[in-house]
C-alpha cells in the first residue's frame, strides 16, 4: 500500500518531538477524524533553524509530518510557505488516493505554525499565510 519512502518516514520519523522554547507552534486536524499534527518551530532571522512535530494518526500522517519537517528545516519562512501538499506527496513517491488528505494536513500544519509565529509578533497572518481551512477529510 505504501511506498518505501512512506514506510521509512513512518518507521524512522525525522524531527519527532517537541521544542520546549519554540518560537511558534501550530496544530491542525482533530481527534474525531483520526489525525492531529502539531509542529514546533525555532525561527531565527526568518529562517527555520529547528523544527519538531508530534502526530496522532495513521502511518501516512506520520510520514507526511516527518518529511514536511525535513523539507522546510533550514529554509526561510517564505520558502516554507511555498510547501505544497503535492510536493509532499511527490517527496514520498506517492500516497494512496484516500491518504492524500494527510499531505494536505502537513502543509496546513506548517502554515499554522508560521501563522502562530506572525501572530505572536502582532502581525495578522492571514494576508501572508492565507486562510487556514481545516483539511477536508471526511
Amino acid at each position, binding site marked *: 500500500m505504501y511506498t518505501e519512502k512512506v514506510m521509512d518516514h513512518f*518507521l524512522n520519523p525525522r524531527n519527532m518531538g517537541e521544542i520546549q522554547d519554540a518560537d511558534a507552534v501550530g496544530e491542525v486536524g482533530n481527534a474525531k477524524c483520526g*489525525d*492531529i*499534527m502539531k509542529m514546533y518551530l525555532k525561527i531565527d532571522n526568518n529562517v527555520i533553524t529547528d523544527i519538531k512535530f508530534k*502526530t*496522532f494518526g495513521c502511518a501516512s*500522517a506520520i510520514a507526511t509530518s516527518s518529511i514536511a519537517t525535513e523539507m522546510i528545516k533550514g529554509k526561510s519562512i517564505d520558502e516554507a510557505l511555498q510547501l505544497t501538499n503535492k510536493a509532499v506527496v511527490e517527496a514520498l513517491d506517492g500516497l494512496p488516493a*484516500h491518504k492524500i488528505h494527510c499531505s494536505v494536513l502537513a502543509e496546513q500544519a506548517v502554515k499554522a505554525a508560521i501563522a502562530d509565529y506572525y501572530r505572536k509578533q502582532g502581525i495578522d497572518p492571514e494576508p501572508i499565510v492565507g486562510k487556514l481551512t481545516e483539511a477536508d477529510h471526511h
Partner: protein
Amino acid sequence: MKRFIYADNAATTKLSDTVLESMMPYLKEEFGNPSSLYELGSRAKTAIERSREQVADALGALPREIYFTSGGSESDNWAIFGAANAMRQKGKTHIISTKIEHHAVLHALEALEKQGFEVTYLDVPGDGIVRTEDFERAITDKTGFATIMYANNEIGTIQPIPEIGKICRDRGIIFHTDAVQAVGNLHINVKEQNIDLLSLSAHKFHGPKGVGALYIRSGVRIPNYIYGGAQERGRRAGTENTAGIVGLGTAITEAVASIDKKAEYLTKLRDYIIGGVLKNIQRSRLNGHPVKRLPGNINFSFEGIEGESLLLLLDQKGICASSGSACTSGSLDPSHVLLSIGLPHEIAHGSLRLTLGEDNTFEDADYILSVLPPIVQRLRDMSPLWEKIKNEN
C-alpha cells in the same frame, strides 16, 4: 529470524492441510462439470452432495436446506433481498436488525430502505450484546423479517440467537443470522435455535476463500438471487466451484468436531493476553463483553493512538493483527461497531483486534505482551493527543 504470528483469524484463516488435500483432486483430474452426465461429471456431483451433508450435519439441518454460494457476503445478500421480497408479498415492510452488523448486512439493508422498506437498527449497550426486550419492543404488525448476527466480527460478542429465534418463530417473522464468525467456534443447531436463514463463509474456519453457504429452512420461500442454470436444485445458478465446496465440507467437519477443545484452549490464551495488556498498558480498554465473546477474540482500545500505525508497527514485529477502524477500506470513519458500543471517535480510532487460532501458542502470547506495550508507548510519545490526555490527569 523474524517471528511470524498470525493473529487475525477473524479476517481470514489459513487453509488446513487436510482441507487442501481434500480439494486437490478437484483442482486436477476430477475437473468435470457436476452437471455433466458422464462419470467424470457425476463424481464431482457426488463430492458436492457429500459436502452438502457435511454442512447440514454441522448445523443440524437437512442437506436439501443447504445452498452453496460464493461466500458470506453473497449469502447475506441473498437472504436479505430474498426475505424482503418474500415479506413484501405478505404486505410486510418492516425489518429489524442491529447497529453492529457486518457491512454485507448493513449495506444490503440500506439498499432496501431506498426501495421503501423500513429498518429498525437496534442499539446495543456498552457490552455489545443486543437485548431481547429491545428486540421484542421493536416488533410491529408490519415486521416480516429480522437479521441479527450470531457473533460480532470486531468485538466478538455473542448475540442471544436462540431467544430471538424463538420470538421470531412465534411471531411469524423470517429470521436470518449472519453466522460467518460463529460457525466452527460455537455450537449451532438451526432447528433447536429456530433459525430460518443462516450465512456462513468457509475461509473463516480454515476452508477456502470464495465459497460459503446459505441455509434456507425448508418451508421458507425466498426467490433466487443468481438466476441461470439448474445448479443447487435450481436455486443458485453457476457452475459449481467443486474444489471450494469440497474444501468447505472438510473444513466445517473438522472445525465443528474440535469446537469444545478449541474453545477451552483459546479462551485461556485470550484471557491470558487480555490480563497482560490490561496490567501493562495504562488507559487500555477491553471492548465487548468480558465473557460472552468468541473464544479467540480480543479487542482493545488504547487512548491517544491511532490503529493503522499500531498495526504497521506490529507487522514490523511479525504480528498480523487488525484494527477496529476501516482504514484500508478507503473510509476514514472509525468502526461503526465501536461507536455503537459508546466509544468516542478518538478512542474508537485507536483499537486493536487480535483474533487467535489453534496455531497460536502461549509463547506467541508472551511475545505479543512483550512487543505491544513499547509500541503503544512509542506512538503515544509521538502523539499530541496523548500529551493532552496525560496532562488532564
